[in-house]
């Protein structure tokens, strides 16, 4: 205290947060576009251009990071990490941002939202997502999660035409803020128990065992509860179905892909990184979260007739499968990261397709609304089927390989009961995903209407489907990348 501290910015730090800067600049660009132009077409055109440039720039700057020997580097006064793990998630989020710009445009306009306003809020949320995978201390973690959540509270209630949007926004806001407060209180207790908020320092304190006070244990449990809320795992899942159903579909797509992946990126970094020693304290709690998520998510999805609600419950189940990887060794962590990537690609594709079905203001809501889709629109139904099969975990899609990796690592580390429960609940999963597939291909009384797809949307949907299939047929290359990313975590 007393001595002046120099600004902790080293050369190269700004390159390392390049993706973050690209997205924030794009978000500011959207706001500038909104002020600069008065004609809607001009606003829309520039929104699209700036958004695509921002996403591309984020991907390029992510790839420019000098990984060196593969070890984690601490940047900006040891507040953030820069390593292969952050590059991996940067690329995933940049891809999501591009996909959202192309695929959600129709749904945004259908809900009478202005694209420029929608995408500026979404870009700020993406900035928070880019931060979650980098957080190197508990304060960065808290700020990243708040930054990604707050624009989404607004977006959930953004559609003025929707009867349910405001209720969804309210529920998301109240429950989300309570979860943030719980996370924050957990951080406070953790800080009290150890006198530090740094992951590396905390990890050293926890593994030395000298300080395993009740404060640390309570803090860990509260932080895990806060993170479980963000990824929508049982018993902190209550908001998911209501908020997913009530929000505009373009926003639901963001929640199901970006928010979930960001929450998982933060949880994996927190539990499998330098803090790995702490995992043994909360492994029982994590075991129950995993088991209940798989059961409640799949059983809940089975009872739904609304497609968005069905995908909401299934996302709870997937959170369970992914967190199961954390109970294993480093291979299990790698499986969790692999599963996250496959899940995000499949859900981005599935919601991409759902957003195009519908007529005028109306969207397709129930499973029965999809009756006969394949007869009228065979190609898009084929793409939808690929995404659904991947979510169900049927070969030759990426979903099967991801489940295989996760269950395999669980069995190797002795969690045989959990792996068995996982296999059993995936069978339930196949039932409700196939219900949608059967509605599309085997029933023909319905007449679902499809909005017009631009050539770009076809390309993006095709690429998503191709990558889902590629991850199923040739999992080796991504598996190797993911493994070295996980090695850089510790």
């Amino acid at each position: 205290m007393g001595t002046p501290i120099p600004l902790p910015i080293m050369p190269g730090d700004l390159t390392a947060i390049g993706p973050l800067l690209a997205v924030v600049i794009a978000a500011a660009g959207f706001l500038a576009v909104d002020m600069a132009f008065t004609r809607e077409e001009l606003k829309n055109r520039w929104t699209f251009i700036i958004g695509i440039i921002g996403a591309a720039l984020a991907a390029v700057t992510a790839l420019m990071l000098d990984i060196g020997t593969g070890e984690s580097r601490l940047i900006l006064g040891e507040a953030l990490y820069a390593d292969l793990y952050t590059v991996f998630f940067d690329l995933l989020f940049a891809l999501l941002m591009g996909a959202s710009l192309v695929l959600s445009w129709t749904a945004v306009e259908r809900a009478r939202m202005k694209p420029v306003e929608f995408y500026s809020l979404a870009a700020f949320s993406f900035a928070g997502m880019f931060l979650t995978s980098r957080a190197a201390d508990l304060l960065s973690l808290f700020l990243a999660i708040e930054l990604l959540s707050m624009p989404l509270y607004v977006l959930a209630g953004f559609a003025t035409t929707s009867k349910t949007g405001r209720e969804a926004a309210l529920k998301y806001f109240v429950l989300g803020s309570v979860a943030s407060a719980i996370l924050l209180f957990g951080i406070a207790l953790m800080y009290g128990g150890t006198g530090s908020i740094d992951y590396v320092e905390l990890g050293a304190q926890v593994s030395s065992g000298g300080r395993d006070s009740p404060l640390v244990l309570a803090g860990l449990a509260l932080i895990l509860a806060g993170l479980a809320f963000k990824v929508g795992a049982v018993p902190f899942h209550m908001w998911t179905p209501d908020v997913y159903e009530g929000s505009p579909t373009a926003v639901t797509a963001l929640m199901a892909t970006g928010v979930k992946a960001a929450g998982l990126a933060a949880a994996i970094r927190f539990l499998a990184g330098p803090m790995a020693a702490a995992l043994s304290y909360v492994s029982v709690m994590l075991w129950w979260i995993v088991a209940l998520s798989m059961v409640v998510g799949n059983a809940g999805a089975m009872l739904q007739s609304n497609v968005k609600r069905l995908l909401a419950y299934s996302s709870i189940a997937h959170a369970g499968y992914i967190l199961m990887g954390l109970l294993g060794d480093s291979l299990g962590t790698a499986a969790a990261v692999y599963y996250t990537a496959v899940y995000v690609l499949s859900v981005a594709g599935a919601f991409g397709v759902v957003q195009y079905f519908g007529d005028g203001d109306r969207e397709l809501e129930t499973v029965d609304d999809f009756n006969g889709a394949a007869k009228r629109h065979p190609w898009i139904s084929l793409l939808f089927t690929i995404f659904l099969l991947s979510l169900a975990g049927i070969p030759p899609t990426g979903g099967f390989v991801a489940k295989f990796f996760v269950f395999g690592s669980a069995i190797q580390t002795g969690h045989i009961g959990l792996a068995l429960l996982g296999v059993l609940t995936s069978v339930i999963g196949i039932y409700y995903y196939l219900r949608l597939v059967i509605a599309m291909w085997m029933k023909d009384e319905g007449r679902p209407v499809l909005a017009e797809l631009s050539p770009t949307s076809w390309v993006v949907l095709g690429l998503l489907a191709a990558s889902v299939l590629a991850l199923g047929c040739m999992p080796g290359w991504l598996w190797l990348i993911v493994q070295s990313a996980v090695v850089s975590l510790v």
Partner: protein
Amino acid sequence: MPAPLEYLAVSCILFGIGIAGVLTRRNLLVILMSIELMLNSANLAFLTFSRLHGQLHGQVIAIFVMTVAAAEAAIGLAIVVALFRQTGSVRIDEATRLRG
């Protein structure tokens, strides 16, 4: 100086009151206040621990949290106003359209 344990106890009690408020009260404005109470109880804990460890970390975090709480209150009030325009009420019982 009184023992920091007393401050910690106050902070825990405030957090409990906050949670109880969110769970039991039906008025949205009271729920918003309860959320603020939870965030500020964490602030009090940070300040206590900061003093206990003889560091500045906790105090810096508390300033960050105050900023976040202000942003959160702004969004929360905006959502309550939007809901009030739709239903004409600030009671949470009006928001029961989504279920199942």
